[in-house]
């Protein structure tokens, strides 16, 4: 039990309370507040790191990561459509969720590495921002074909102006401009409280996860299997990419986790407006009901142990 990070215990507390039908809930204004703080904090941290090194050095890595974001939904779609026999819109929408990333999962992996003092490339939030979107574009093309392209301007709005993306990339820019000294005075709120805020977030995520279980029961065995197996495949790809790019062990774990995670902030909103005929409860049930808890409880320690073994042999 002690192998679990204490913040994950808050997730479990939330899940147990939800299963027992407690009336516990974070007020929605507080859940929004907590989410905003996490997004800003992650962005700020990445931005500060960016201000320390030339962007040009990162360009190749960034391109490779975007390529991964385009590839993952293309891998997921045929599985969902041909094997899972889901409707085209549903398959495309779920593929988009799994091609994109979960900020909450990112926060947990960072907390996990932090409490084990494992270093990682601190500019990783750049990858989080970059991975938010490509999968959305792929998902829409999969659902609608290129004919959807006359909507691109409208779609770009939905993608870039959703509050999740604005806060994450806004934090990134502010951190970049202000630099390490500039953000220091706001550090007590955004950095010192980070783990406590994450604990509250995970408490609510536990409750939300449980509330998705109903949708899961209806969606059947295939989706549950997909929601466990696809992350493992994606993590392998992400880990391999991290290795190819020469990332540290910590950075490789983060990239594997990002690949394995499924979005539940930017993508659901964009898909709802762009592919409305996709049933949102399928993708949320899979992403929130299975993949999120799987990643934070089983996945991250697993990716860690695999990467550790490879890096050990590597050196």
């Amino acid at each position, binding site marked *: 039990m002690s192998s679990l990070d204490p913040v994950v215990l808050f997730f479990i507390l939330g899940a147990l309370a939800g299963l027992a039908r407690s009336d516990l809930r974070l007020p*929605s204004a507080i859940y929004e507040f907590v989410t905003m703080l996490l997004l800003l904090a992650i962005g700020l941290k990445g931005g500060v790191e960016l201000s320390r090194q030339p962007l040009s050095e990162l360009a190749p890595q960034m391109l490779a990561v975007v390529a991964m974001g385009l590839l993952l939904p293309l891998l997921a779609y045929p599985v969902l459509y041909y094997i899972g026999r889901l409707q085209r819109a549903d398959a495309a929408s779920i593929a988009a969720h799994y091609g994109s990333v979960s900020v909450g999962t990112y926060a947990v992996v960072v907390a996990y590495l932090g409490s084990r003092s494992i270093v990682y490339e601190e500019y990783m939030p750049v990858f989080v921002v970059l991975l938010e979107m490509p999968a959305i574009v792929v998902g829409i093309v999969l659902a609608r074909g290129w004919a959807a392209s006359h909507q691109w301007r409208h779609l770009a709005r939905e993608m870039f102006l959703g509050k999740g993306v604005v806060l994450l990339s806004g934090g990134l820019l502010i951190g970049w401009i202000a630099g390490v000294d500039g953000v220091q005075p706001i550090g007590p709120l955004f950095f010192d409280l980070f783990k406590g805020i994450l604990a509250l977030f995970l408490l609510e995520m536990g409750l939300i996860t449980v509330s998705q279980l*109903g*949708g899961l029961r209806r969606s059947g065995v295939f989706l549950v299997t997909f929601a466990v197996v696809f992350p493992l495949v994606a993590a392998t790809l992400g880990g391999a990419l991290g290795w190819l790019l020469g990332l540290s062990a910590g950075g490789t774990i983060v990239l594997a986790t990002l690949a394995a995670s499924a979005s539940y902030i930017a993508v659901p909103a964009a898909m*709802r407006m762009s592919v409305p005929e996709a049933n949102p409860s399928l993708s949320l049930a899979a992403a929130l009901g299975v993949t999120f808890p799987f990643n934070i409880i089983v996945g991250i320690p697993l990716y860690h142990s695999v990467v550790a073994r490879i890096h050990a042999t590597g050196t």
Partner: protein
Amino acid sequence: MQTETRKLLTVICEAQLESHVIADLERLGARGYTVTDARGKGGRGVRNAGWDRSANVRIEIVCDDKTANALAAHLRDHYYDHYAMILFISDVEVLRAGKF
């Protein structure tokens, strides 16, 4: 007291539609509207949220008969198929007929 009869159109739908529905209403001639946050359950399951993902809004519009029908028809045609939405219309008396 002098009153006139108007229609009250109440729309309950998923929160993400708020700005879209309001833009539609204004384009189709509604001169005002009132929005409250809500949660609920219907054909598309329970909706009670956080981070807006599955909350509802309740939009009320006081207007004349013709506008109410036009709005209702438009909303039905554009949103009923794919979104969580219901609407209903009732009679209300108002004081300033010119306003609505």
